């Protein structure tokens, strides 16, 4: 009997898992939100759009090799583009919406490869149009081939802001300032990691060179503390955070810009994994709450696997290896996963994954946020945009002893709105940790819907016959 596998997400992990599972003779369904495979990192422009891509050639080669590999097997895949999984259940059911109807699938195994989203840190003015995620700005460049702003301040931590600054420059934009919470020199403490990631580092250095050559003013140790403007962003105030995590008074400087692109790392899209009842753990550096997985991506729920960044930030190269390994593990009966044959079979991919993961140690060092960063959130700062909740209200709820995300939500409605807490919950957990010294023990109870779907579509539901 052919094993059925449903893969949620067609980024690097999902595509690699699909290729592997098809190769092993499984009946594979891939469900993806996007119109074309690639996910966030390998986002493809509309085929009618021509023009330059501002990424490094070696990076583009990786992207196209994987996408071509996926395209080569796509006619053997039940590929669902522009489809949303809005619920999964502990019994293995996957509910998806596509067009004006919904469908319930119940495969032998599901692989959740839903990636990450960017981490929001609210600060005064962050909701003014013209403030956006650095990755979001990059997506506009990648998918629409247009500049997201003419005069840009890029800020945050880790490598992404620097890459985005370089790509904006290459696209003809001007970068008014590049503010980094930490110097990338933190990576030098991991020489072994750097050696393992030398190929990626080479790409990184070329982006650095673009930034240096353009003489972009750089502010190391600085973060945006205020966005200034009314209808549109006009300027941003940067301030220095010192070694004791304090915002240094008098260090503020205003820089005129029409776009502020920020990245403070990533949050795992782990809501679906949590909905299956899988055991979760929290690690802010790799994406907040993530499913506990083993080397084969197995969660605590039989038949539920997680691959790639949604199991904890690991980058596209690891995600691709991960996809292959998890795709293989899901393709065989559960008893065979622990057998020697599969391990031997996957030895080369596992070694490659280990090497790429080693490099992530150095990357993670640049993504660790100091507690002081949360001091940029003032009482007046809007934290939950959907429900209009300011930090002062959350602080009061914390002070009256409501420490869990569920209890805070019931007090101030944070996380009850349109986005279901995807934007603010991770920040609220970290704010609670910074304010009380203790992180909330659990994520907000994950429930359907992961995405809004109209009643009419839910009522028109196709249910796969029980197998």
């Amino acid at each position, binding site marked *: 009997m052919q094993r059925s596998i449903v893969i949620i997400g067609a980024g690097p992990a999902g595509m690699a898992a699909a290729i592997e599972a098809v190769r092993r003779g499984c009946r594979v369904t891939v469900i993806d939100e996007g119109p074309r495979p690639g996910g966030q990192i390998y986002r493809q422009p509309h085929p009618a759009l021509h023009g330059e891509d501002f990424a490094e050639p070696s990076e583009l080669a990786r992207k196209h090799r994987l996408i071509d590999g996926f395209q080569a097997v796509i006619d053997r895949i039940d590929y669902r583009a522009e489809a949303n999984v809005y619920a999964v259940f502990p019994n293995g059911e996957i*509910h998806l919406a596509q067009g004006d109807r919904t469908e319930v699938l119940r495969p032998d195994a599901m692989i959740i490869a839903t990636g990450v989203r960017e981490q929001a840190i609210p600060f005064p003015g962050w909701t003014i149009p013209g403030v956006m995620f650095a990755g979001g700005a990059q997506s506009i460049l990648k998918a629409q081939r247009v500049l997201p702003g003419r005069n840009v301040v890029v800020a945050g931590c880790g490598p992404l802001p620097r890459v985005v600054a370089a790509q904006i420059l290459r696209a003809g934009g001007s970068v008014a300032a590049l503010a980094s919470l930490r110097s990338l020199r933190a990576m030098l403490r991991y020489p072994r990691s750097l050696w393992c990631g030398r190929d990626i580092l080479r790409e990184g250095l070329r982006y650095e060179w673009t930034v240096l050559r353009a003489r972009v003013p750089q502010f190391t140790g600085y973060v945006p503390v205020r966005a200034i403007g009314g209808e549109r962003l006009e300027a941003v105030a940067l301030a220095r955070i010192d070694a004791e995590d304090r915002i240094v008074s008098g260090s503020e400087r205003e820089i005129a810009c029409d776009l502020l692109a920020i990245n403070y790392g990533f949050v795992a899209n782990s809501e679906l994994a949590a909905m299956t009842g899988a055991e979760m753990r929290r690690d802010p550096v790799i994406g907040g709450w993530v499913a506990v997985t083993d080397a084969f991506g197995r969660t605590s729920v039989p038949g539920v696997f997680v691959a790639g960044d949604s199991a904890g930030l690991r980058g596209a190269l690891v995600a691709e290896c991960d996809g292959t390994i998890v795709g293989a593990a899901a393709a065989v009966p559960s008893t065979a996963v622990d057998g020697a044959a599969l391990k031997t079979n996957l030895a080369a991919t596992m070694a490659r994954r280990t090497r790429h993961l080693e490099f992530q140690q150095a990357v993670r060092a640049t993504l660790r946020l100091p507690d002081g960063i949360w001091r940029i959130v003032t009482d007046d700062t809007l934290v939950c945009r959907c429900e209009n909740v300011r930090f002062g209200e959350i602080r009061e709820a914390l002070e009256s002893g409501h420490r869990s995300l569920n209890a805070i939500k019931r007090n101030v409605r944070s996380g*009850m709105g349109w986005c279901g807490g995807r934007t603010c919950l991770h920040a609220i957990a970290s704010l609670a940790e910074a304010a009380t010294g203790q992180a909330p023990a659990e994520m907000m109870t994950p429930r359907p819907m992961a995405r809004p779907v*109209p*009643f*009419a579509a839910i*009522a028109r539901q196709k249910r796969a016959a029980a197998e």
Partner: protein
Amino acid sequence: MTKEKFDVLIIGAGAYGLSCAWWMAKRRSGARILVVDEGEFASGASGRNGAGFRMQWGLDLNIRLCQESTRFFETAAEQLEYPRGIELKQDGYLVLAHSEKALAALKGSLEVQHRYGVPSELLSADDCLKMVPALGRNRLVGGTFCGKDGTISPFLLLDSLLKACRREKVDVRYGTRVEKLERNGGGFRALVQDGPIEADKILLCTDWAVPELLASLGLNLPVKSLPKEAIVTVPCTPRVKPILISLEHHISVNQVNRGSIVFVVSRAREGKEIASTPDFLAFASQKIIDLLPGVADVPVLRTWGGVSSLTPDMQPILGETEIEGLYVAVSSFRGLMTSPAVGRIMSALILENDTNDPVLTQLTPRRFKTGDLIVEPLLNQE
């Protein structure tokens, strides 16, 4: 370890538990009152319901409990010294009938309501459709409407009660589970993880979980658990002004000020799980579209679940058990809307042995032994 001793221990910090505690503290200042709850703030049925209150019932006692409670909600901000208010909204309740049998029950109930001065009125199917154009005409035969019925925010009611309780020196502890109850001379001992708690009197407000605690003292009460699931949509244009309930669809509908529509959909099943069930969404969506075709295009934002109590006659249980000093207050799925009146009545009973309220005679736990069950005409429409 120093033993803790209280005049009254209330188990369960939902609307019943907190309301009873607040009324007791007001009635006798200096009373040592402890409220414990195994969960966290608003994590039980009081924080998981449809938020409605209504005086449209068919039985005297339900009308009276809800009438008194409605008056309390209207002045809760002042009474509980909670300037923010509890988001009181009195846009009315439209109770719909989709069969002649249900319509007859509504008409009969209307007479009883009018005897108590409830400003309710009978509507034709056309009147109902005029009031809520999103409704489906299919099988609709009419309804009744009362403009004084409405909704509050359950979270704000619980928060205002919690703050008022703490102001009155009531000790409220979350995350505290009572494993077992024991008799201790004339009083009781409750075993919690931190050690025993002694109390002269105990009031059980754990709703569907009351039988578990009673069992540790050798008592039983026929209370079952009834899991329910709810749906909230994304904010949309105003489509449903009054609260709707349909006696046959077993659905209540409430469009809140933010524009989201909340649906509570009941199905006959038993269990204590608040988890969402896989077949619920499709089942509920079909029913909702049948009742209210005008919302078919509205996207569902989220679902949630809750567990309420169900008694053999679907009526609350209020009073002292066979053990002196041990009291129960079981809501039978309308705890939020009756909590103010129940708080007043139970506090008088427990602190002053005041048994004068006729509700206590009808809702006594003893009725299941004597067979004096009660019939609420608006709850038996299958």
